[in-house]
C-alpha cells in the first residue's frame, strides 16, 4: 500500500482529467439508473414513462456526443485522446460511430413499443428499455476501448444485454431456444477470445494496445503462436461482426428473436464491432516492422468469403427475417472492404456505409414488423398480393431494399460508391491483386443480392394472393417511422453531403 501512495495523486488526477471526455457515457449511466428506478417505482404502468425517459435521454446523449467533436477540436487533439489510464481512446471516428449508434438506438427505442408481438408480452417492456440503455453504454465502451481488458469488458457488457433481449419473450419457445443458443455460442466465443487475450498477455506482459510493449513484444515471439492468439481474439470480435466462419449463430437467432431485437442485433453491435476492429488493428497496421501476421490478407480473405457465403445463403431463404439475417452477413463482408484500406478515406466511407446500412436495415425490419402486425405475414409467401392493399408500406419496403441492394437513388448506393472509391484509390497505390478480386466480388454480389431482395417486391406486387387478406389491423406508427426512414434513404442518396461532411 505504501508503495502505491506516490502514484495515488497522479492516478486521481488522471481520472479527474478523464471525466470531461466521458460525459456521454456518464449521462448514459445516469439514464440507465433512471429508467431502472422508474420501472421499479411505477411497476406495470411504467412502460410509457420508461420509453419517454429513455428516448429523451438518448437525445441528450446525442447532444453530448456532438459536443465531444468540439471538445476534441478545441483542445487540438484531432488525432485522439487517451484517458482513464489509456483504457479508452476518443477519436473523431469514434465520436462519429457513437453518433450513429445513438441515433439508431433512438429510432429503435421508438420502434420497440410498436411491435405487437413484443407488446403482448405480459412482463411489459420497461425492462427492455433499461437493458437497451445499458447496452448502449457498453457499445460506447466498445467503440473507445483500446486496452485488451476494456475490450473484453465492453464486449461482455454488450453480449449480456443481447442475451437478455433475445430471450425476452421467454414464453415463446422459438425465442427461448434462440436465446439459449445465443448464450451458449456467445459464451464460447468470449471464452475463446479471453484465451487469446491471456496468451497475448503471457507473451508480452502488457494489455495495452498502444503503449507498453504489446506489439514490440509480439515481434519476438514465434509468429505461429502469435497468429494463433490473434485469431482467437478475432473470433471474439468476429462473433459480434458475424463474419464467416463465426456467423453460424446469426440466422437462427435473428429469426427467433423478436423483430425489433433483430433490428437491434443486426445494426448496433455490428457497427460498434467495426469501431472496435479498427482500434484493435491500428497499432499493428501502423507498426513499421510488423510481419508476424498479415492482417490485411486475413481480412481480405475473410471479407471475400463472407460476402459470397452470406449472399448465396440468403438466396435460399423463405423467411423474411432469416433472409435479412444472411444478407446482413453479406453486408459485414462488404463493409470489411473499407476496413482493409485502413486510411482516412476508407474510414469515412465505412462510417457512411454502416450508417446507410443501419437505417435501411432498421427500416426493412420495421416493415417486416408492420406486415406481421397487419397481416400476420412472416414468410415471403405470406406477402403475396399485400402490395396493393398496403401501398405506402410496400413502397417503403422497396426503397429500403433498393438501398440494401445498393441501387441508385439511395443511401446504400452512395455508400457502396464511397467504399469502392476508397478501395480503388488504395489499389492504385499498392496494386494488390486481391483488392481487385474483392471489388469484383463486391460488384458481383450486388447482382446476387438483387436476386433475393427482389423476392419481397415480387411477392408484394407481382404475385397474386391465393386467399385475399381481410385484416383490419392497423399499425400507423410503424408506417410513419418507415416513411420517414425511406425519405431519409432517398435524401441521402441524392445529397450524401448532408451526412458525409461530418465523417
Amino acid at each position, binding site marked *: 500500500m505504501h508503495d502505491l501512495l506516490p502514484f495515488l495523486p497522479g492516478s486521481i488526477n488522471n481520472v479527474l482529467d478523464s471525466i470531461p471526455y466521458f460525459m456521454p457515457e456518464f449521462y448514459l449511466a445516469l439514464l440507465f439508473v433512471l429508467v431502472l428506478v422508474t420501472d421499479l417505482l411505477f411497476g406495470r404502468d411504467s412502460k410509457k414513462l420508461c420509453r419517454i425517459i429513455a428516448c429523451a435521454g438518448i437525445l441528450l446523449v446525442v447532444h453530448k456526443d456532438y459536443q465531444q467533436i468540439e471538445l476534441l477540436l478545441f483542445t487540438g487533439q484531432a488525432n485522439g485522446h487517451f484517458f482513464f489510464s489509456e483504457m479508452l481512446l476518443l477519436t473523431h471516428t469514434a465520436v462519429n460511430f457513437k453518433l450513429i449508434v445513438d441515433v439508431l438506438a433512438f429510432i429503435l427505442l421508438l420502434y420497440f413499443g410498436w411491435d405487437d408481438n413484443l407488446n403482448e408480452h405480459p412482463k411489459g417492456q420497461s425492462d427492455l428499455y433499461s437493458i437497451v440503455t445499458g447496452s448502449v453504454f457498453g457499445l460506447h465502451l466498445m467503440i473507445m476501448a483500446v486496452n485488451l481488458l476494456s475490450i473484453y469488458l465492453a464486449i461482455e457488457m454488450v453480449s449480456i444485454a443481447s442475451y437478455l433481449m433475445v430471450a425476452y419473450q421467454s414464453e415463446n419457445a422459438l425465442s427461448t431456444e434462440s436465446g439459449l443458443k445465443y448464450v451458449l455460442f456467445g459464451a464460447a466465443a468470449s471464452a475463446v477470445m479471453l484465451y487469446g487475450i491471456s496468451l497475448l498477455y503471457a507473451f508480452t506482459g502488457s494489455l495495452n494496445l498502444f503503449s507498453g510493449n504489446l506489439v514490440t513484444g509480439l515481434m519476438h515471439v514465434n509468429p505461429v503462436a502469435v497468429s494463433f492468439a490473434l485469431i482467437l481474439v478475432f473470433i471474439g470480435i468476429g462473433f459480434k461482426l458475424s463474419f464467416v466462419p463465426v456467423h453460424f449463430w446469426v440466422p437462427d437467432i435473428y429469426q427467433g428473436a423478436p423483430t425489433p431485437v433483430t433490428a437491434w442485433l443486426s445494426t448496433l453491435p455490428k457497427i460498434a464491432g467495426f469501431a472496435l476492429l479498427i482500434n484493435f488493428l491500428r497499432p499493428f497496421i501502423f507498426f513499421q516492422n510488423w510481419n508476424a501476421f498479415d492482417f490485411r490478407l486475413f481480412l481480405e480473405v475473410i471479407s471475400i468469403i463472407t460476402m459470397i457465403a452470406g449472399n448465396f445463403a440468403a438466396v435460399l431463404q423463405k423467411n423474411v427475417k432469416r433472409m435479412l439475417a444472411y444478407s446482413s452477413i453479406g453486408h459485414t463482408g462488404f463493409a470489411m472492404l473499407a476496413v482493409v484500406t485502413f*486510411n*482516412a*478515406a476508407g474510414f*469515412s466511407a465505412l462510417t457512411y456505409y454502416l450508417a446507410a446500412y443501419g437505417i435501411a436495415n432498421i427500416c426493412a425490419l420495421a416493415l417486416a414488423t408492420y406486415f406481421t402486425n397487419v397481416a400476420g405475414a412472416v414468410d415471403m409467401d405470406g406477402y403475396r398480393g399485400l402490395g*396493393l392493399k398496403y*401501398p405506402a408500406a410496400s413502397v417503403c419496403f*422497396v426503397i429500403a431494399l*433498393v438501398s440494401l441492394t445498393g*441501387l*441508385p*437513388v439511395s443511401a446504400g*448506393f452512395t455508400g*457502396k*460508391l464511397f467504399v*469502392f*472509391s*476508397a478501395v*480503388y*484509390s488504395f*489499389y*492504385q497505390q499498392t496494386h494488390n491483386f486481391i483488392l*481487385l478480386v474483392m*471489388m*469484383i466480388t463486391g*460488384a*458481383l454480389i*450486388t*447482382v446476387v443480392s*438483387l*436476386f433475393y431482395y*427482389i423476392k419481397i*417486391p*415480387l411477392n408484394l*406486387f*407481382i*404475385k397474386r394472393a391465393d386467399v385475399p387478406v381481410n385484416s383490419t389491423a392497423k399499425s400507423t406508427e410503424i408506417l410513419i417511422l418507415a416513411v420517414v426512414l425511406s425519405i431519409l434513404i432517398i435524401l441521402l442518396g441524392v*445529397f*450524401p*453531403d448532408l451526412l*458525409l*461532411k461530418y465523417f
Partner: protein
Amino acid sequence: MNILTLIIFTPLLFGLIIALMPSRWRSSFKYVALLATLVQLAMSIWIYCNFKTGAAFGGINHETQFQFMQKLPWINLDLGAMGKMQIDYFVGIDGMSVSLLVMTSFVLVIAALSSWEIKSNLKGFFILFLILDMAVTGVFCSLDFFMFYIFYELMLLPLYFLIGMWGGAKREYAAIKFFLYTLFGSVFMLLIMVGLYLSVKDPVTGNHTFNMVQMMNPANYEPGSVFSVAAHQTIFGLSARAVGFVVLFVAFAIKVPVVPLHTWLPDAHVEAPTPISIILAGILLKVGGYGIIRVCLSIFPDIASSGAYWLGLLGVISIIYGAFNALAQKDLKRMIAYSSVSHMGFVLLGLASQTAEGISGAVMQMVSHGFLSTMLFFLAGVIYNRVHDRGINHFRGLASVMPNYTAFVIVAFFASLGLPGFSAFIGEIFSLTGAFKSHTVNGLLPYWMAACGSAGILIGAGYFLWTLQRMFFGTVNFKGGTVWQTALVDLNFREKLTLFPLAIMVLALGLMPSLVFYKINDSVLALVQFLQLK
C-alpha cells in the same frame, strides 16, 4: 431555368401530381401522363429548332461546344489524401444527343397514348411510367458520368415493375431476367466508372472528377493512374484500358442488345405491355447505342479502333443471327423483337467503321428504328388487345377484315425492310457505306462484313414479306373463328392518331434525311476527327 433540366424533371413533377391525386380520379391519370409527354415534346422541338450547328458546336470532347449546358456543384467532398471528390450536376447536349432526345420525346407521347389499354392499378402504372420517362431523358442529357449512371440504373426498377405487374403470362420470369441481365452489366460499369474518376483530374480545380468530357482528354489523366493512356497499367495481365473498354461495352451491349447478350430481349419485349414494349424497343435500345458512342468510343478511342474489327464482327453477327431468328418466329411480337436485334446490328457496324458515313448512318438508324419499332409494337398491340393472341399462324386474310390496319402494317413493314424512301433505308445504307469505305480509309473493317450486312437486309425483306403474306393476304381464316372476326374491328380514332404521325415521321426522314443529318453532322465529324487523333 435550364431547358434540359426542365425537360428531365417535368415528368417527375407530373408523377408527383398523379401521386397526390385521389384514386377516384383514376380515369384522368392517362391525360396527365399524356400532357407530361406533350410538354416534353414541345420542349424538345424547341430545343431542336434552337440547336445551333457549325464547326464551333461539334461537342464530343470540347466542353465549351455543348449547348444548353448547366453545371452546378452537386457532391463535393474532401477525402483527405485522395484529394477532393467532385460530382457535378452537369447537363448539355451535342449533335449525338439532340436527335435521340427529340426521338425519345416523340416515342414517349406514343407510349403514353398506347397506355390507354392499361386497365388496372393506373396510379402505379403512370407514376412508374413517368419515373422511367425522367430516367431515359436524363441519360441522353447527362455529361457527368455519375449522373449518367444514376439515370441509367434508375430505369431498371420502374421497368421491372412495369413488366412484372402489367405484363403477359410469363411476366415474372421476363422481368427478373431483364433486371438481372442489365444489372450484371452495370455493376461492373460502376467499378470502371470509379476507376476512371480516380484516374482523371479536372485541370481547372485539380479535383478528381466524374466529368465525361474531361475523361476524353488523355492529358487529364494522372500519370501512373490505372486508366492513364501513357502508363500502360495492367489488370490481370491485360491492358487496363482494354479491360475498361470491354466492361463498359458489355454493359451497353446488353442494352443494345448485341448477340450473344440479347437473350433477355425477346422475353422482355414479348411479355411487356404494349407501351412498355414501345419504350423498350424505341428508347432503351438506343440508350445502349448512345452509351457506346458517348462512353466507349469517346473515352477509350484507342481501344475502340484497335478493337473495331471485333465490334464490326459482333454487329454483323447480330444482323444475320437476329434476322434468321426473326424468320423462324411464330409469335408476331417475338418476330419484331428479333428484327430489333438485327436492325441494331447495323448501328454497331456503322460505329465500328469509324467513318463519317458509318457513324451518321448509325445515329440515323437509331432514330429511324426508334420510330419504326414503336410503330411495329403498337401494331402488334392492336391485334393482341382485340383477340389476345399474336400467333402469326393464327391469322389469315386480315387485309379484308381490317383494311386501315393493314395499310399501316404495310407502311411499317416496308419501311423496316429498308425500302428506299423510308428512314431505315437511309440508316442502313449509310452504315453499310461506312463499312465498305472503312477498308480504304482506315482499314478497320474488311469488305466481307459490309457484304454480310447487306445480306441481312435481304433476309429482313424475307421475314417481313413472309409475315405479311401469311397474316394479311389470302382468304379470311382465323384460329378463333367468327368470335375473332367480330372482335377484330378496324382501327379506332386514337389508334389512327397514334400511327399517323409515326408513318409521317418515317416517310419524312426517308425523304429528307437532312432533318437528322444537318443537326448531327458537326458532332459526327468531330467524333471522326477525335477518333483519328486517338
